[in-house]
């Protein structure tokens, strides 16, 4: 028995028009980004048909060339979903390249030993930042800014010079190609896709993942609903530190050197990818799949510009900025609709 009869229409009566309802759908930004990707890819196909754009390898290269960015952006997605921000991403990546190169080349440690060490250092750095953010109530922006300085500084402490890696196992790992029919993926790309899948599972099928959304939606409520909000927050930053370190390893593999200036400013690329992928910067709404499309769109911009030949690399930044702006305004339109 129902006490009310009009309730089923409650949701509809609130959303007045069709347009408003479409704007209110949380999946809309992801679809827009996916659509944007397809359109851009279509434009690439029609323009550079004769230059081999249609080859499957060109498409797969998007994954190979952006594997590290994808992993970093997945970490950033967790942080942003929880309503925070992590500026230390680029520095942790840069640090990991240096740390790995130094241990492998200068200390002669085997790469299999170095990998867990690097991941542990990154995760611990993230944990520390999360701990300070949670326990001393300092804005994430400032704490991770300190992290940015610290890890970039540690890079320079290790060495001011770039260290190239000649280790045989590293280069064989870097050159391994996983064949997919006529084209191939690198180990880095495979790892990135595995991370993506794992992140998707964690966010949608574990209590921890749902807590991340809850905290991003309304931290105060999450607290009053009895969710362990502090631990979740620290875990999110730890995760981001871990992802950054993993991205650093992939970057090392990709570029086969450590350099104190590697990945400078990559936190901006990661944040841009997350936002373009439709995740609200205020937290609580978004999908890690959107982040994949965000990374792909950024990667596609780069390869389109390469194919164009006459366009210079800085158009990448400008295009990223324009997209960022467009998506921030879309987000704004969505959130203001929801509030009223």
């Amino acid at each position, binding site marked *: 028995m129902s006490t009310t009869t009009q309730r089923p229409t409650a949701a509809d009566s609130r959303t007045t028009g069709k347009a408003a309802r479409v704007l209110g759908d949380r999946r809309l930004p992801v679809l827009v980004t996916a659509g944007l990707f397809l359109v851009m890819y279509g434009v690439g196909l029609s323009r550079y048909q004769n230059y081999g754009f249609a080859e499957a390898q060109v498409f797969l290269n998007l994954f190979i060339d952006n594997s590290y960015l994808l992993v970093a952006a997945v970490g950033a997605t967790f942080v942003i979903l929880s309503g925070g921000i992590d500026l230390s991403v680029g520095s942790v990546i840069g640090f990991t390249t240096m740390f790995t190169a130094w241990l492998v080349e200068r200390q002669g440690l085997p790469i299999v030993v170095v990998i867990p060490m690097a991941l542990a250092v990154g995760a611990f750095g993230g944990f520390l930042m999360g701990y300070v953010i949670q326990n001393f109530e300092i804005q994430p922006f400032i704490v991770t800014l300190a992290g940015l300085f610290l890890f970039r500084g540690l890079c*320079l402490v290790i060495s001011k010079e770039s260290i190239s890696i000649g280790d045989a196992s590293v280069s064989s790992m870097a050159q391994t190609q996983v064949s997919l029919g006529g084209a191939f993926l690198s180990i880095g790309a495979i790892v990135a896709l595995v991370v993506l899948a794992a992140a998707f599972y964690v966010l949608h099928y574990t209590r921890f993942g749902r807590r991340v959304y809850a905290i991003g939606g309304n931290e105060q409520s999450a607290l009053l609903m009895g969710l362990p909000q502090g631990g979740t927050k620290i875990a999110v930053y730890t995760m981001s530190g871990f992802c950054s370190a993993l991205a650093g390893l992939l970057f090392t593999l990709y570029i086969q050197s450590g350099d104190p200036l590697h990945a400078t400013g990559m936190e901006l690329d990661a944040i841009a990818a997350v936002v373009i992928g439709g995740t609200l910067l205020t937290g609580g709404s978004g999908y890690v799949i959107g982040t994949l499309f965000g990374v792909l769109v950024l990667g596609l911009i780069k390869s389109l510009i390469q194919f164009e030949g006459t366009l210079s690399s*800085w158009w990448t930044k400008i295009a990223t900025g324009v997209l960022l702006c467009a998506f921030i305004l879309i987000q704004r339109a969505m959130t203001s609709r929801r509030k009223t």
Partner: protein
Amino acid sequence: MTTTPRWRALTHHHLFWPVAVLVILLLVNVPFTPDFFAIKMTDGHLYGSLVSIVLFGSPLILVAVGMTLVIATGGIDLSVGAVVAITGALTCSYISDQADQSALSGVFLALGIGLAAAIVCGLWNGFLVARMGIQPIIATLIIMVAGRGVAQLITDGQIITVNSEPYKLIGGGYWLTLPFSIFIVAAVVAVTVAITRRTALGLLVESVGGNAEASRLVGIRSMRIKIMVYVFCALCAGIAGLMISSNTSAADGNNAGLWIELDAILAVVIGGTSLLGGRFSIGGTVVGALVIQTLTTTIYTIGVPTQTNLVFKAAVVIIVCLMQSPKFRAKVFGAKFGGKRAAVPAPAETAPAAEASPKMEVS
């Protein structure tokens, strides 16, 4: 006995700690460089560590002064580094296109174009923050990302070098035995102090940052004020951009002003302006910027490898922020110290205050 209240008044002055840190940093140099405080006159120019600290710190002071006002309204501007690059790029590319690069009219026009671009960036940031209601970090991120691309677009990815005597004066010239940029900084700081303290702007900025809802209810038009401070901040960054490109006689779209936004924010925080907005201190910010520059110089002179500079900076950020965090002070120094800033409510009001928030003490 009579000195005690005076000493208290001194230590409680808002500039005491920043200045103390600065003085200590300066003194640290003396054992390593005995003539640290010496100032020599060579070729009619004054030289010395103190002069170079101010000279090299000039762009940072400018950017940090603009940033102070933005932070005082409760905002933040991440785009200043990009604005530095754009301004330098536009100005230098205009000058380099001139037949006579030293023609005054051309240089002035170039300065005008560069600063106009900075103002446009500021208007855009202000529009997004005040009008569209987008969080400042996010709104200014757009120009932070795109701005460097624009700067490189202007310079065509090259480092544009110019050979213009009048332009060189701004960041590398001397006047009355001192670097000219020191005069520019002095002028900007003086103008800022005058605008904020001789008019009511400073009061209204502090009010908006200190309590936005109360400000709305007394009829302050906070939208205008916010747009104004973002424009002012961008203008300061533009002047810093002129200074940096003039000093090297070159515009580098990629590296000019890199990370200056972070240094500027740090300078503001060291200077005692809270990141939450409200009370601000231009003097504190200037001292804060000098502290950062002195830190860099000190690390260099005492023979610590320069690459640890960033690690030190990270340590400073963390310490300053922890000291500003009431929760940290409460944990470390006990309730007495921690409660100092969070004004103890009058007894009679405790009960309603406690009723109002269901959030307290839940953990």
